[in-house]
């Protein structure tokens, strides 16, 4: 156990630092890692994502043709450290590079894999169609149906809370292909071109004011058979895979975001002259301890991952960082009430509901703890 990385890692950091100094746009520096886009993916963010890709700094562990430089795990960690320290996001929308790319690389055909570079670079914007009105936490209850008809599927049904749907060219769509009651055993995943006739996208305004997700209706939407990812009725495996990708690598972005918002909370407390208040100081420090502790926990998880390829700590981190994010925002507004800080609180629920609710995370942690299935 030691605090600092070796010389080689520091060389890697310096190289990245030089790149960031030269190329990071002003809008990105200090912006923080949060994905919220509030009304579209700005041009600077698209260009930045492409620049990172072109220089092999978007997903360092990938080979150059996929926006990386074959970096080791430790180098990847250093990469995230440096971005987090500078508050620089890689991209403002993650489905393409964080979910679609790894899923296609693992389960896709050769033809499908050709979609990967553009998905990572952000040239094609992807959305993920999983949730439905009747299937949220219980994903296996989804009903959007795809019927195989010769060389194509015909899709009918509805998705909801589909982030970025209105700006997406492509969708990774989860559909029922088995019997109505086939649950997890009857789900398949399709690649859907969002310009296909029969798709109706209705943006949903969020409580915080932005419009980042939509409900999406499908009426006799035709999808070529070769757009099936993996095997027929085997989509659950792809689901689990894609969620795992999301959980495995992102913790430093989450803790980096916490650093950022905590700093802002302190600034807000200073602004309203509350920084000398003993109660405020006590409560701020309780949160500071959590932020630092979660970062340390992430590193502990990284060590288990390096050692065994599995990191039970990661299950804790999604829950902990999103819940803490919410409490930091609440405290900020309590100390320094303002329209912005109030809105900020509303926005934080995205983290504790999206990507599996906090309760579902606790259920998963209970499994990790070896507890029997719950009632």
């Amino acid at each position, binding site marked *: 156990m030691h605090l600092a990385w070796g010389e080689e890692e520091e060389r890697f950091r310096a190289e990245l630092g030089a790149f960031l100094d030269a190329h990071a746009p002003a809008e990105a520096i200090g912006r923080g890692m949060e994905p919220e886009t509030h009304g579209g993916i700005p041009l600077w963010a698209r260009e930045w994502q492409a620049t990172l890709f072109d220089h092999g700094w978007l997903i360092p562990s990938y080979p150059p043709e996929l926006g990386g430089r074959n970096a080791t795990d430790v180098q990847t960690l250093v990469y995230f450290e440096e971005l987090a320290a500078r508050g620089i996001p890689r991209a403002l929308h993650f489905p393409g590079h964080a979910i679609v790319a790894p899923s296609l690389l693992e389960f896709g055909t050769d033809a499908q894999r050709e979609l990967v570079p553009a998905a990572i670079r952000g040239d094609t914007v992807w959305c993920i169609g999983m949730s439905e009105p009747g299937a949220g936490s219980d994903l296996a209850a989804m009903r959007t149906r795809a019927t195989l008809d010769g060389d194509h599927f015909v899709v009918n049904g509805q998705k909801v809370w589909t982030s970025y749907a209105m700006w997406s060219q492509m969708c990774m769509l989860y559909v029922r292909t088995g019997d109505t009651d086939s649950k997890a055993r009857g789900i398949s995943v399709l690649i859907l071109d969002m310009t296909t006739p029969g798709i109706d996208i209705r943006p949903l305004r969020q409580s915080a004011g932005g419009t980042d997700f939509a409900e999406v209706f499908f009426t006799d939407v035709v999808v070529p058979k070769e757009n099936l990812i993996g095997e027929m009725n085997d989509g659950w495996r792809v689901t689990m895979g894609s969620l795992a990708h999301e959980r495995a690598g992102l913790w430093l972005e989450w803790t980096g975001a916490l650093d950022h918002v905590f700093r802002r909370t302190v600034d807000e407390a200073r602004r309203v002259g509350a920084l000398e208040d003993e109660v405020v100081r*006590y409560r701020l420090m309780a949160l500071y301890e959590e932020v630092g502790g979660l970062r340390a926990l992430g590193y502990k998880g990284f060590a288990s991952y390096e050692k065994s390829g599995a990191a039970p700590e990661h299950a804790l981190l999604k829950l902990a960082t999103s819940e803490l994010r919410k409490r930091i925002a609440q405290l900020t507004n309590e100390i320094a009430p303002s329209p912005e800080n109030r809105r900020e609180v509303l926005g934080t629920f995205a983290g504790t509901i999206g990507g599996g609710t906090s309760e579902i995370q606790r259920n998963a942690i209970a499994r990790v703890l070896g507890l029997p299935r719950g009632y």
Partner: protein
Amino acid sequence: MDFTLSPDQELLRDTGRALVREHCPASLVRAYAEDPSVADDLTARLSEFAGLVAGPAVDLCLFLEEMGAALVPGPFVPTVAAFAPIVAAVGANDVFESVAAGEATGTVWSPSPVELHAPAGDRVEFVAIAVEGGDICVTDQFELAPLEVFDLSRPQFDAKVFDAKVFDAKVTGDSGTIGHGSYAALYRATVAFSAELIGTTRWMFETTLEYVKTREQFGRPIGSFQALQHRLADMSLLYERAWSSVYWAAMAIDADDDEQHRAVHVAKSSASEAARHIAGEAVQMHGGIGVTWDHDLHLYMRRAFMSEEVLGTTAWHRARLADLVLQEGGQHE
């Protein structure tokens, strides 16, 4: 930051774990309250590991975590966790060397805000006493007054220097407490006690986890009830976060990194918070058996309470941390 344990560190941890499993059953802890000499054999065995005082904080912590999980009574922990760094800081080199060789034991008495009440003072040869004016006096001539025993495995005492005939009296600093001018000793002691407390917490958590998997009500294990599962998930989070904070601080100390000034406060405060919360949940999830004298839980809970109070309360640590973190233009990480 690399949390990977080296093979030597794993061996150290496993050795400590095996040693206390064999030589420190709960029955010994209970017997100690009546007659502290029952732990003499254990203390002798542990003295072979006294050399940890001269090594990295991380190693010391790994070993002490195991001591905490078994509620090891007697002078070993106070000696290596608190006494050793303080004699090192005041430059009482001969005493430090005999401690490191496992030949001498000692404890520490220090007033608020970084209180230590000569834990296991009745079983040691030396005491480091913070005397009037904040100087520290290392002596084998001292007088003890027992305090009311709450933690059965670790009685506490008021201690004062016996007479002018002080053995190897060493003084440091000119005012304040132990922390003054010798923060390194205080940091090491704080993180060492925090690591021990983490072990105590681990026992409470694991024991509870085991219990809810076996205890049945309504025809099923109580651990299948989601109301308990979610609380256990939160307990595991608190425990893991505290564990990580403690070792982070230990690494910062070993690297003599600036981060240590903040990390020790985070470590103590987080370890205390996890201990307090998990102790309460552990008792609740045990039901009636959890409030009996016969069940070992209360032994652990008592230790958890006392460890939270020593070397600075949570309020004190947070106040100090706030001074460091919130100063104008101060660093937040």
